[in-house]
């Protein structure tokens, strides 16, 4: 035989080493983006009762939308419910850290914000939290990306990213699309 079994095995191992190196490059790049650039899956195991979401606590109607604390932290709270986001439009400042907090009173929903890496499932029973910085201003689309029922296709909201100069929360720290 021109080629014995050892040669075949050596060729396969050589190939496996090359493949391993390629996969290693990808693994290192993922690790780097996670460690140095804060790009990681949103994971915030924090529970909340979906059955009483509207009755008390953080996700009652009056608490929804964008709020700025006196020390300048921006938090946007959104409820994803069959078949609307509440509120249907939120305003956030460009170039500042923003914390999005979402929850669902009924079934599984999910969001993405077009043109950004913002993406999370919204699972009843949990608060989904995503931290990000919006780089560019604009009116971005925030659709529900998980099947939640027959009205899923109409379940969209808008995220208005505005320059910091025109991001003016009111005396309570509340900023809304209408008052901007």
């Amino acid at each position, binding site marked *: 035989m021109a080629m014995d079994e050892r040669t075949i095995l050596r060729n396969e191992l050589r190939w496996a080493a090359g*493949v391993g190196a390629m996969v290693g490059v990808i693994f290192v790049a*993922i690790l780097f*983006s996670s460690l140095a650039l804060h790009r990681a899956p949103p994971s915030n195991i924090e529970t909340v009762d979906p059955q009483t979401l509207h009755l008390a606590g953080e996700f009652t109607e009056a608490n929804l939308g964008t709020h700025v604390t006196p020390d300048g932290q921006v938090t946007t709270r959104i409820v994803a419910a069959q078949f609307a986001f509440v509120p249907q439009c939120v305003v956030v400042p460009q170039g500042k850290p923003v914390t999005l907090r979402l929850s669902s009173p*009924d079934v599984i929903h*999910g969001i993405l914000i*077009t043109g950004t890496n913002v993406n999370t499932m919204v699972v*009843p*029973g*949990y608060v989904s939290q995503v931290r990000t910085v919006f780089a560019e201003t604009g009116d971005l689309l925030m659709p529900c990306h998980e099947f939640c029922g027959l009205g899923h296709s109409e379940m969209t909201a808008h995220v208005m990213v505005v320059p910091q100069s025109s991001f003016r929360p009111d005396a309570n720290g509340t900023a809304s699309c209408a008052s901007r």
Partner: protein
Amino acid sequence: MLAARRLVLAHLWTAFVVFAAAAVLGAWQMWVRSPLAAPFSTPDNYYLSVTAHGAAMAYVLTTFFIMGFGYYVAETALERTLPSMRWAWLGFALAIFGTAMTVLTVLSGRASVLYTFYPPLTASPFFYVGLVLVVVGSWIWCVLMILAMAQWKRANPGRPVPLAMFATVSNAVMWLWTTAGVAVELLFIVIPASLGLTETVDVGLTRTLFSWTLHAIVYFWLIPAYIAFYTMAPQAAGGRLYSDSMGRLSFILFLVYSLPVGLHHLFMDPEHSTGFKFVQMSLTVLVTVPTLLTVFTITASMEIAGRMRGGTGLFGWIGALPWRRPMVLATGLAFFMLWFGGGGGLVNMSYGMNAMVHNTSWVTAHFHLIFGGTVVMMYFAIAYEIWPRLTGRATQAPQLQCAQLWLWAIGMMVMTVPWHWLGLEGQWRRVAHFDYADPAIASWGPWVDVSVAGGAILLASALLFIWNLARFHADQAAKLTPVPPQRYAVAVHPPDHVPAALNGFALWNVVVLVLMAVAYGFPLAQFFIEAPPQAIVHHVDRAG
């Protein structure tokens, strides 16, 4: 003629008839979500169709094909009859009954929860019970495959199990592990909820159990394609398999690494921690290894064939391959689409990068390329390869078979290339219709139109496939006497002996157990350590 001939034909025809119907639905769905006006376009019909398309393709086509093909391999590779025809027919009957129950429930509009279920949305119990029966039917198949190999090993002590059968049994073993997750989800949570016995579900737990199944099920579908790559394609090309051991190792790696990685479907979920997502991401990286090993081994096997047919130079052997043989053509096209599908998958599994594409058309493109492009493409090729032996009739028009494969590949690419682009643009999933008047997404229209054309080409190909198979059964088809036996590719060095680790699954079951304990132990236990708040069941089959 095969002893299990009727059994195999019953399974495969069921698979392909359901496949053709689901292809019609798929093409219609493409049309509905495009800017073009489509008939019957309501969300009701759309989600009914998506549920039917998904369940038919993912559960019915695959399970019946894999069972039928498994029986075929067991008889032809081991050259002995099946352990029990009676049990095999019982499995078929259960699966058929379950399929009928599921299909009728979906068509009645009482199960539009998509094939991935999404509790707390809850369909009619008949939908889930039907699917459970399909799975139970397949469990009988698993046991028969494991028994067939065990009996053969007893009769042939010390000899290596033929690669095709070794791979089939690896799939059977993997499927038993795989279905554990979804079976527990359905039997203990979803079906009680659908019957009204419980009012609430732990959504995080159901999602985690489903993720247990969700990745490995793809390898369940894929392994017959890989069996064809390793044992049929080199033979069809007129060459030899480059390495038999690498084949065994690849199938073992599929068994080991396809299971403890399901959490990568839940990267964007709030109920799991970064740590376990990271660990399962790391294991997912390793799942690429068996596929990349296969790419090399099969390419080398094809190179042997090409050079034996007179091909020279670094790439000259490619042109020398017999591309007019369906098995060879399908292998080439499947690898081509695997490049795109696998590349998309690399992006999906890349931890934070998943946020860029999760639940966008990118993912839809990825799994259509892997499933449609690689898996179903090879199911076609396998059917063309074994139909003469099942019917005793000669292939009449191989050029029509090749045309069908080409159409399938072209349609798949035309459909999925726009999806990749739209996915990066943020086109979200499971939408019955888009508002193309919205300036934010108006530019998507033409891309979606292109993918509609792709869907139409795929439908044409699916129908041509049925036609091609039906012709074997036509009267004027030439009888083959004698019916040629199925021959599987011979390795350059056919093994005399292989280590026990490459000839059975005892060691590997222990490995799977350890990996699953590490990967899924705490992520599942957390729901019992401190039970999270439950969500109210939403029935889609009745009011309230």
